[in-house]
C-alpha cells in the first residue's frame, strides 16, 4: 500500500488546516499528520483512485458554472419577485439520458446542477443512466436536455473519462 494514497486530498487538507489555524511550522506538522491519516482512511473507504484525463479543462468548467450560477440567481430572484411572471411560469420534470458513468463525474454534475438555482437533481438510475431533473422555469424541455448534455456533460466526459 502506498504511503500517500490520495496526495491531492492530503495536500488540500493540510492547506485547509493551516488556513483555519495559522501558517506556522508547528501547525504544518500537526496538519500533515492529520491529513496523512485522513488520506489513508479515505483510501480504505474507496479503493479506486480518481483519474483526471484533462485537468486543464477544470478552470474552464469553473468559469462557465460561476457565470451560469450568477445568471440563474438573477433569473430565479426575478421570478420570485414577480410572482412567477404573474402566474405564467411552469415548473416540471425533465428526463435526461446521460452518457457519463464515472462516479466522480456524476457527483460533479450533481453539484453543478443543484448549486445552480432553478434546477434540482432528483434521481439518477444507474442501470439506464437516466437522470430525473426538476426545472423551476420550464420553457422548452429540449433546451434543458441540450444545456445539460452539451454544456456540462461534454466537458465532464472529457475531464473524467
Amino acid at each position, binding site marked *: 500500500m502506498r504511503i500517500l494514497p490520495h496526495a491531492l486530498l492530503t495536500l488540500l487538507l493540510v492547506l485547509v488546516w493551516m488556513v483555519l489555524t495559522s501558517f506556522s511550522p508547528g501547525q504544518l506538522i500537526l496538519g500533515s499528520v492529520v491529513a496523512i491519516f485522513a488520506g489513508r482512511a479515505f483510501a480504505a473507504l474507496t479503493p479506486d483512485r480518481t483519474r483526471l484525463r484533462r485537468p486543464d479543462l477544470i478552470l474552464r468548467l469553473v468559469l462557465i458554472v460561476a457565470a451560469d450560477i450568477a445568471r440563474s440567481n438573477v433569473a430565479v430572484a426575478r421570478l420570485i419577485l414577480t410572482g412567477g411572471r404573474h402566474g405564467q411560469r411552469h415548473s416540471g420534470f425533465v428526463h435526461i439520458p446521460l452518457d457519463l458513468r464515472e462516479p466522480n463525474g456524476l457527483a460533479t454534475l450533481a453539484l453543478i446542477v443543484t448549486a445552480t438555482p432553478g434546477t434540482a437533481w*432528483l434521481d439518477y438510475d444507474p442501470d439506464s443512466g437516466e437522470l430525473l431533473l426538476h426545472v423551476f422555469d420550464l420553457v422548452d424541455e429540449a433546451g434543458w436536455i441540450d444545456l445539460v448534455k452539451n454544456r456540462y456533460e461534454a466537458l465532464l466526459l472529457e475531464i473524467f473519462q
Partner: protein
Amino acid sequence: MTSHLAQVPLWAAIVIAVLVVLGSGLTLLGALGLVRLSSFFDRIHAPTLGTSWGTAGVMLGSALLFTLTGDRLVIHEIVIGALMMTTTPVTLMILGRAALSRNGGARPRAANPASITAGLDADAAEGGSDRR
C-alpha cells in the same frame, strides 16, 4: 464607537457594503420564495439562492473586511463557501428523493418513471394538501 470599521478605505467600504447587502438580499429573496411558492418541488429551488450567491457575497465581503482591518490575509471564509457549495447539493438530493418516494408511494427507481412524475404533477396541482 466601532473603530475597526473606520480603518477601511472608502472604495473597499463600498465594495464590502454592496457584496454584503447583495448576499443577504438574495438570501431574503430565497426565504420569500420559500413562503410564496405553492408546491414542494418549486420550493426546493428557493434556498439555493441563499446558498450560492447569498453565501458567496457575505463571505467575500467578510474576507475583504478582515483582510483590510487585520494584519494578514484572511481566507477562512473560503472554507465555509466551499463547505456550502459541496454540502447543499447532497442535502437537496436526499431531500428530493425522500419527497419523491413519499409522494409517489413507489420507490423512485420504478420500472416506469413517467408514472411517478405524472402522480407528482397531480400532487403539485393539489398545492397545499394537508397530508403528512
